[in-house]
């Protein structure tokens, strides 16, 4: 047998590679990070994705437009409603259908409720990642109230499928307005409690300030959008830049921070929760009368061409790119998912920090894995 040469390297050059995931509580799903370590410091991170790749883009090519909506629920399942809306808006734009105001307003309220519950879940998990288990209970307790509102109106709790091309599946429940108003009243009191529990905590500050800095230039180059991008000062709120649904008739601030570290990303999301509540309050008493859906042809065929629609999900910019050849199935559908671009920045911002900081940085990116794998 041939004898193998044993290579020895000095200690300081030795690299230790560990697998974080695919089953790891802080990766929030089936994500594997191949982390090269030098001592406790992270040298580089290679994300390995695709464990739950389900070929949604391929499946879309063999189904009709109303069916696609149900697949988009399964991408970013925490902001399912906004994904649905993106496809619906794109189809409506292609067919040049005027959507009544009632639908627009209801869609906007639902989107903002979705954003609220998404940020609540993120806050709950982020607190837990950093060792504060109480956050998890607080966050999920309040999120449950929004899910109950969804259940009453849409039938589903998380995967709502409430949109359809031309409007909504059914009208809102008679209790909807009252329950939403009750919730906002309740949550305005509760949100300062979140601050007391985590935002002002010294240990939390130590673990998040100055950790995982992302500059504005890098955020733009990596295509990092959503609260993560805005925490670095990248003005990327699609609701402001290309208003859709009823966002052009409400007053709200685009939350921008300049620090770009984990703490800024945290504060950006907390601030967004306040803004979401403002938007809902402006609309909830002014839902116009009218139909909840426009009558559509039984078979929806898009005219030949290419259509692109951007929306702002809870995690960033979702783009739906449809190429139609005039049939009832699309020729090609591409989903530009926010998490996909946000993940690509992880190696860049987490290198050089300790492995415990990687958990904080990963948590602050708020990754949803099925949205990356699609």
């Amino acid at each position, binding site marked *: 047998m041939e004898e193998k040469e044993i290579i020895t390297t000095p200690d300081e050059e030795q690299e230790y590679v560990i697998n974080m995931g695919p089953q790891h509580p802080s990766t929030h799903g089936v994500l594997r990070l191949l982390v090269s370590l030098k001592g406790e410091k992270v040298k580089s991170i290679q994300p390995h994705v695709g464990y739950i790749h389900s070929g949604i*883009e391929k499946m879309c090519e063999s189904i009709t437009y109303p069916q696609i909506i149900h697949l988009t629920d399964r991408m970013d399942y925490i902001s399912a409603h906004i994904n649905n809306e993106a496809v619906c808006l794109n189809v409506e734009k292609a067919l040049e259908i005027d959507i009544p105001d009632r639908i627009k307003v209801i869609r906007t309220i639902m989107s903002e409720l979705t954003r609220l519950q998404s940020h609540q879940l993120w806050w709950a998990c982020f607190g837990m990642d950093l060792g504060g288990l109480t956050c998890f209970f607080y966050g999920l307790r309040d999120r449950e109230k929004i899910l109950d509102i969804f259940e009453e109106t849409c039938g589903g709790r998380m995967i709502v499928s409430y949109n359809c091309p031309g409007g909504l599946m059914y009208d809102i429940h008679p209790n909807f307005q009252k329950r939403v108003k009750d919730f906002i009243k309740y949550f305005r009191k509760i949100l300062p409690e979140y601050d007391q529990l985590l935002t002002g905590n010294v240990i939390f500050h130590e673990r998040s300030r100055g950790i995982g800095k992302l500059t504005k230039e890098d955020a733009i180059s990596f295509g990092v959008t959503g609260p993560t991008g805005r925490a670095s000062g990248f003005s990327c709120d699609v609701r402001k*830049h290309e208003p859709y649904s009823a966002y052009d008739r409400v007053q709200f601030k685009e939350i921008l921070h300049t620090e770009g570290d984990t703490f800024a990303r945290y504060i950006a999301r907390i601030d967004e929760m306040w803004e979401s509540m403002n938007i809902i309050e402006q609309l909830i008493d002014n839902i116009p009368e009218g139909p909840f859906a426009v009558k559509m042809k039984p078979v929806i065929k898009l005219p030949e*061409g*290419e259509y692109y629609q951007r929306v702002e999900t809870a995690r960033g910019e979702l783009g739906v790119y449809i190429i139609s050849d005039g049939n009832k*199935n699309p020729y090609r559908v591409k989903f530009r998912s926010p998490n996909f671009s946000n993940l*690509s920045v992880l190696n860049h911002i987490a290198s050089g920090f300790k492995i415990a900081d990687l958990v904080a940085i990963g948590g602050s990116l708020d990754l949803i894995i099925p949205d990356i794998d699609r």
Partner: protein
Amino acid sequence: MDKIQLGEFIKSLASDLEIKEGKQYLEVTVPPSMLYQLARQLREKEEAQFDFLFCLSGVDYGSDLGVVYHLRSTIYDHVVVLKTRTSDREHPQLDSVADIWLTANFHEREVFDLLGIKFKNHPDLRRLFLDNSWGFPLRKDYVDDINIVYK
């Protein structure tokens, strides 16, 4: 700059461009040999400054394979859609833009994984979702015996 001015400006950057005013965005079709040069100019020229590549999609056009780049300038807020095609289905190869826009790194790996388009000078061209035993699922001639995907 509005769509027409932008079209005129891009026309002055390179020859052989096919510029179409699309329904939504300005669409520019560029031959593969000119792609990298034009992309770099669009990123760096003072008047253009397309610094945000917000979507990169691979498309199988039947006879050709192509890549579509959606570019936006965060300074001027204008958008252009770059398109390029290659007719070589056996060994399709295009220039990588991963050193111009860092987000292209992952997006090009995805296109390579699902459509089999190779990107020249890509820093780390490996498959992203699937392993090497798979074909290229987003190609129109892909046959899936197990799941019987049909149209």
